[in-house]
């Protein structure tokens, strides 16, 4: 079953625990492709990216924390969606509707491991 990813649209911040806050582009949850999101799960607070050829199970890794290996959180998410770098034509749709439907090929270069900077 293809998936949808709810992505944080804003930067949260904290004076001493900023590492644990959600940043713009952080994937928050993975749901079914057709999932109907809640009233507050929409732009500008969140974006919805529906990916037609990535399963819910395959996308789970995008919502993993960056941890120290002993359970301590170093960053809220290891991966990010580079929402500010996607092509302008798609970004326009995202800005106006709050969601886009893409294939993995279309989005893979904009899903990035924050540590290695390697994209999918």
């Amino acid at each position: 079953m293809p998936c949808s990813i709810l992505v944080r649209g804003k930067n949260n911040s904290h004076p001493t625990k900023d590492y644990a806050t959600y940043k713009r582009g952080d994937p928050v949850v993975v749901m079914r492709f057709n999932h109907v999101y809640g009233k507050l799960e929409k732009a500008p607070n969140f974006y919805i990216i529906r990916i037609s050829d990535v399963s819910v199970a395959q996308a789970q890794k995008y919502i993993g924390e960056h941890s120290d290996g002993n359970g301590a959180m170093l960053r809220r998410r290891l991966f990010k969606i580079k929402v500010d770098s996607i092509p302008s034509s798609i970004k326009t749709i995202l800005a106006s509707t709050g969601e886009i439907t893409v294939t993995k090929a279309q989005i893979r270069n904009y899903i990035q491991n924050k540590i290695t900077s390697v994209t999918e």
Partner: protein
Amino acid sequence: MALESVKTVKPSGGDYTSLSAWEAGEQADIVTADIIAVAECYSFQDTTSVAILGWTTDATRYIEIRTPLTERHAGVWDTNKYYLNVAVGRALYAIEENVRFTGLQITNVDSTMIRMSPAGVSDIRISNCICKGNATNYKHVLYATAGAVGSKIRIWNNIIYDQTGTSGAGINLSSANTDFEIWNNTIKDCARGITFVSAASMDVKNNLVDSVNCYNGAVVGDYNSSSDATDTGGANDRKSQTFTYVDEAGNNFHLAVTDVGAKDFGMTDPGTGLFSDDIDGDARSAPWDIGADEYVAPPAPPATGDAIRVHRPPIGTGSFVAKTGTPTGIEGLEFWGSAFDSDKWKEIARTTPAEPGDAIGAVSDLGNQERHVTQATAGNKPVYTANQFGHLPGIVFDATDTMGGSGAITFAGDISLVIYLLSTQVGVVATSLKISVIATGYGIGIDSDGTNNSARATVDTSGAASQVVTGVATDIKDGNAHLVIVTYNRNTAKARVYTDGVGGTEKAIVGAIPTTLDLITMVAATSVYTVADAIIYSKVLSQAEIDMLQDYYTG
């Protein structure tokens, strides 16, 4: 005093559709905002692990994750209520100092249910939760570490069971700076019940531990009961006890009337007023029972002549049966109007309740979406009528009656319509339940075949003429109640009609139904029919879900 900022977490129609998204969206400095941040969780399965961190809280501006009482389990694991079921990793991670968990159901496959690891002075409370464990070694259900001097963790009225891996504890106390207050919990079938590693102090009372190694380490308390020879050193401890539950095999750990291990052996009010009821809201009575449940004698059966109220019995049979689920247990509920359970009103303003015999102007939406269906014109109002489904009422539509409106709804994906109805009139029911774009007529509806009276669906798209989807050849106008469901899969562009749980042939649909439809129209046209319930989901119901609904209405 700080006010609560309540946001709902629901499968549909709420503010958020997962607790994780709530945490991401609401993460803030709630001390400056002077609020208590509340996530109110409604019935569904939530699957994403949640870490609570990156907030600013204090003792009076805290985070609370809870179920409302109407949506809460009844002291037994219930998949028709909210439950957090995480496939990999810990379910909840409370790293913030001031957090409360109330009335939740939590499970996962391989890790801790609630890990508490705050850095500063903390006030963490866990109450009225059910935690179902796993078999992973060295993992604990409730696991407290860290915390600064002066921290307090209070855990009461919880049922914890089946943490069976090596050294797996129901509650593990591992915070040298924390004062632990552990009251009235039931811990069943865990490798260890309560494990002590470190604490600043302990107040452990009224806990029922029925496990392999009940009290592990120097757990200090009183009025605790155990199934083995371990105790907490109190003068009123009861060790090597046998406990009797209502249904141990079914994981119903309410105390049975015959219990002699825990009933009436507890300390009254160990929390000094913090709580006075049990896990499912029953009032405690002195002397309190040990464990999460307070035994309450069932009410006396009605005597001859007593007034009784009967709620939704199975139709057409004489016995009560346990239902396997309810319509709210299926995600994607967009609308639910019910002659049995919704509020019926005499006028569109919904101010005067309707009684059987009244023409009705509105039916409230049980789906909590505020999508009430209405009819303002007197001559077009259906009639709320007694004794339609056995002794239960229905809403009778004649040829001029309609209900609808309530505004647009977006169906980005799939649709299922459900109607439970009966009719005795031969002839075409032009449309009995329909959602469509009123201006264009494009949409989907349930109706019946004029020749053999079988259920069918009519689909109108912008790409083709009306397309009929036939169901199985069951006469739905035979005077008996029937459950008719139509599903529309937007991806595959196919629709199917189910009659009394039996699916007809799936039909390919030319063109697409619009994604924004006007909810909801129920009309009678040339027939008279009676509706009990009409439900709309934004998903394709599975056969298992259809079977559950069939059981709900007719089982």
